[in-house]
């Protein structure tokens, strides 16, 4: 039987005989050894001339003995890494609906711009007179971020979202200390549904953490927050839109309650991409919010990073922003402030959180994205992201269960595993079966407040046709799960380069690097 895309719906219809091969390879799916198994000590893929004789100045520090690093010639290295790449799923491979991670199109124009020698090939400590364009780019990025958030200041240097959280919370801590309340205001409220980075960040910089419960509808109630407020409360860290994919309806009241209690409102901006051009955090009462440039402004995730996490700050936190920052003098000229001592009057930077100026390579990519979209395009992108998420919701909510049906989904839609009860199929099994259908699974088991969570974020980059096919596939899978086709799920993935991996074994007996086989074994 074929579904409306002309694809088979019954197990077995599309499965051809899977004949074993002599090599273990299967056409384009090839087993690739480690470089340590194919390279050797003398091999190299670079040509460097031996220097003319000279008098070493290493003294007694010269290295003795081997490093133990194999090399590969250029063609061997090329083939090794191309083959590895073929075992990876990326956003250019297909739909990548990881909720809260925001896998949107990575435009290659951004890559091209970031590689201009004037950006990629400039040193962070070369004379400032030789980098006016770099400073101008940072100022322009800051202007865009401040305009989009409605906030008066921005600290650019954080290297990732969690690093931005730390930066914002440090500014809050410094502001509290400046008011003489450093010893007493030391508790941070974090909703149960928050990213793990939030409590980890608060603890990292010496706050203790108190959890705020989530209401049955998936949001935070101002009444619950007020009940926890007191002179010991430093701040709340609230994600908005939250990790259940819902815009917090009482956010303005929560911010006001925090301010009234002499505390601050840190907003986790991981999901800012849902509201760019639609609502400004500054209008909601936010004191500090990090922006994941790699999510909202599409700088590529590259297998886990690099990210960039600039933090926008309210007027009362702006003076505490860390060094370095660009101070615009009265005559309009930019001055780079690199140490606390150089800060202009009125500024009390809380310190430095990284060497140099932050993720310039990401600034260029993000600004290229912003220029390309413009204010109209960014607003449209948010609307389309929200539209796509709700379209998926509409297409699946009769089959899969929604834990929080009372609010519209923002850019991501959250299902739970209630609908899988009694099928013997878990959320993880369902995710692995999606791999066999050619999709990267959605975010699973997060947020923690929902049992068996499945968080789907299509982003604005997906066409209606792509979404229709995705919905049809998930419907097919859901029907199979409910129809006792358990083997499809529990054995999945069947068609990935590798079958399901034993994660327990990896944790119980950690093998974190390649070890040279013992000589006896090698001889066998």
């Amino acid at each position, binding site marked *: 039987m074929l579904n409306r895309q002309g694809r088979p719906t019954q197990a077995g219809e599309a499965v051809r005989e899977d004949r074993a091969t002599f090599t273990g390879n299967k056409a384009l799916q090839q087993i*690739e050894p480690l470089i340590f198994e194919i390279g050797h000590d003398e091999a190299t893929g670079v040509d460097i001339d031996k220097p003319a004789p000279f008098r070493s100045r290493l003294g007694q520090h010269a290295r003795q003995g081997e490093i133990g690093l194999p090399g590969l010639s250029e063609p061997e290295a090329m083939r090794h890494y191309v083959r590895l790449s073929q075992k990876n799923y990326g956003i250019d491979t297909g739909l990548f609906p990881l909720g809260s991670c925001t896998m949107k199109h990575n435009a290659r124009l951004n890559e091209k711009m970031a590689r201009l020698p004037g950006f990629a090939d400039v040193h962070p400590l070369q004379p400032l007179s030789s980098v006016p364009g770099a400073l101008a780019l940072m100022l322009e990025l800051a202007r865009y971020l401040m305009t989009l958030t409605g906030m008066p200041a921005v600290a650019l240097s954080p290297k990732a979202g969690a690093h931005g959280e730390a930066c914002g919370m440090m500014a809050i801590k410094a502001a509290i200390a400046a008011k003489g309340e450093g010893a007493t205001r030391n508790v941070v409220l974090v909703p149960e549904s928050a990213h793990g980075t939030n409590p980890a960040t608060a603890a990292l910089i010496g706050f203790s953490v108190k959890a705020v419960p989530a209401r049955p509808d998936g949001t935070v109630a101002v009444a619950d927050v007020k009940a926890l407020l007191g002179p010991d409360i430093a701040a709340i860290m609230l994600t908005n839109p939250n990790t259940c994919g819902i815009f917090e309806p009482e956010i303005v009241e929560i911010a006001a309650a925090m301010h009234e209690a002499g505390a601050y409102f840190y907003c986790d901006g991981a999901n800012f991409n849902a509201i760019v051009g639609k609502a400004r955090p500054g209008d909601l009462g936010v004191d500090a919010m990090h922006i994941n440039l790699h999510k909202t402004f599409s700088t590529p995730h590259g297998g886990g990073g690099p990210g960039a996490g600039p933090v926008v700050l309210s007027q009362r936190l702006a003076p505490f922003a860390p060094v370095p920052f660009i101070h615009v003098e009265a005559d309009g000229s930019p001055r780079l402030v690199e140490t606390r001592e150089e800060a202009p009057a009125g500024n009390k930077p809380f310190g430095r959180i990284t060497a140099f100026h932050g993720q310039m390579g990401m600034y260029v990519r993000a600004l290229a994205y912003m220029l390309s979209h413009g204010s109209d395009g960014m607003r449209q992108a948010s609307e389309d992201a929200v*539209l796509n998420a709700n379209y998926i919701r509409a297409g699946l909510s009769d089959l899969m269960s929604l834990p929080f049906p009372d609010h519209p989904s923002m850019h991501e839609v959250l299902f739970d595993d209630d609908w899988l009860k009694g099928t013997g199929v878990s959320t993880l099994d369902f995710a692995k079966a999606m791999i066999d259908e050619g999709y990267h699974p959605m975010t699973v088991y997060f947020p923690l407040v929902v049992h068996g969570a499945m968080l789907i974020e299509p982003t604005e980059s997906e066409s209606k046709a792509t979404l229709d096919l995705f919905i049809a596939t998930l419907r097919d899978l859901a029907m199979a799960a409910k129809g006792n086709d358990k083997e499809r799920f529990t054995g999945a993935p069947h068609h990935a380069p590798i079958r399901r991996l034993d994660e327990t074994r990896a944790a119980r007996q950690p093998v974190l690097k390649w070890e040279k086989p013992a000589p006896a074994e090698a001889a066998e």
Partner: protein
Amino acid sequence: MRYLPLTETDREDMLARIGVSDIDALFSDVPAGKLLKAPLDLPRAKGELEVERILGRMAGKNIAASAVPFFVGAGAYKHHVPATVDHLIQRSEFLTSYTPYQPEIAQGTLQYLFEFQTQVAALTGMEVANASMYDGSTGTGEAVLMAHRVTRRRKAVLSGGLHPHYAAVVETLSEMANDEVVALEADVTGSEDILSQIDDSVSCVVVQSPDVFGNLRDLKPIAEKAHAHGALLIAVFTEVVSLGAVTPPGAQDADIVVGEGQSIGNALNFGGPYVGLFAAKSKYIRQMPGRLCGETVDSAGQRGFVLTLSTREQHIRRDKATSNICTNSGLCVLAFTIHMTLLGQAGLTRLAEVNHANAVKLADLIAGVKGVSVLNESFFNEFTVKLPKPAAAVVEALAGKGVLGGVPVSRLMPDAGLDDLLLVAATEVNSDDDRAAFAKALSEVL
């Protein structure tokens, strides 16, 4: 808008399928009056050509390192990166993938992380390495926090040869968490008395080698004294190429090794993104920050790789995690590991030799300029020069002559009273002509 696939018709059809009249119905949780009615006051969408023009103009105002004789270092270094590296990291399946949460379709990423961990462990002479930090400086901050967890003490001693930015990162973290830091005075010659600072209250000693002034340091006696008092030695480097030529920290009994990996495979990028290298003795694995990739098998018995020991991490341990880190430097790791694979031991050793040779030649040449002296007894590819004038002005004057001649110490430490010192770095990219141009320009501006 070229990046948005939905058409107006699609949007109408989809709203109808959802059952709402207009898009703002989906934003109904935004409090009244806070929903923006029109696009914000920023320029409208631009075509590819126009974006290239705007950013190209900005980039064109900067002087690129490859365009001039270039000797700037102090934590970031201009090296040649093989064309293969940038080609491979732009492969879609690497560039546009995410953190490998679904290992069966992320074996490419996981395998190179495993190879990277092995390479970093070998280079540093350590037992285990993680899958990268943001950069060397934040890695140093994390190393200090890790040492505090291991020793259950909260006092770090920082060498005066530690890069001032790295020291500042440690100081910021410590100030926030009410931990103690003893930062020694700037140590120009590498002869500070750090041993007398080590006692039973100390959690860790942080020593950089080559240090920020270029001196190579003997770490072994520091490790010995630290261990005698139950403290850890954290060894730091900012120039990873040096490990091709000098005794690695692991062979000097360091407990944690942190460094900047930018030199291998990664561009200068005005300060980021870079890649932090982090290695330790294996007994400390469970206190390590960041991600770890481990080997395992699949259900058919084939070797495969997964992220592991995640019970240390923020998404499970929340406020008890070993760090708050979520993102790492995945793509920068890939660049590092490809370049290192191309080099191999033979290539890295040769590269290090050429770097050192070029630095020695440069030091000899500029030591011959009147009024200039080189202060280091030993160095790898960077050294400290004493000038008869404030170095900041000299660097500006050199730039006026088309030579980017190093980092004035006053830029890193304005209050140290070391205004006449200049940090100069040489690498394989410097030619005889570059060195001659530098020496000539220097003699002209002094």
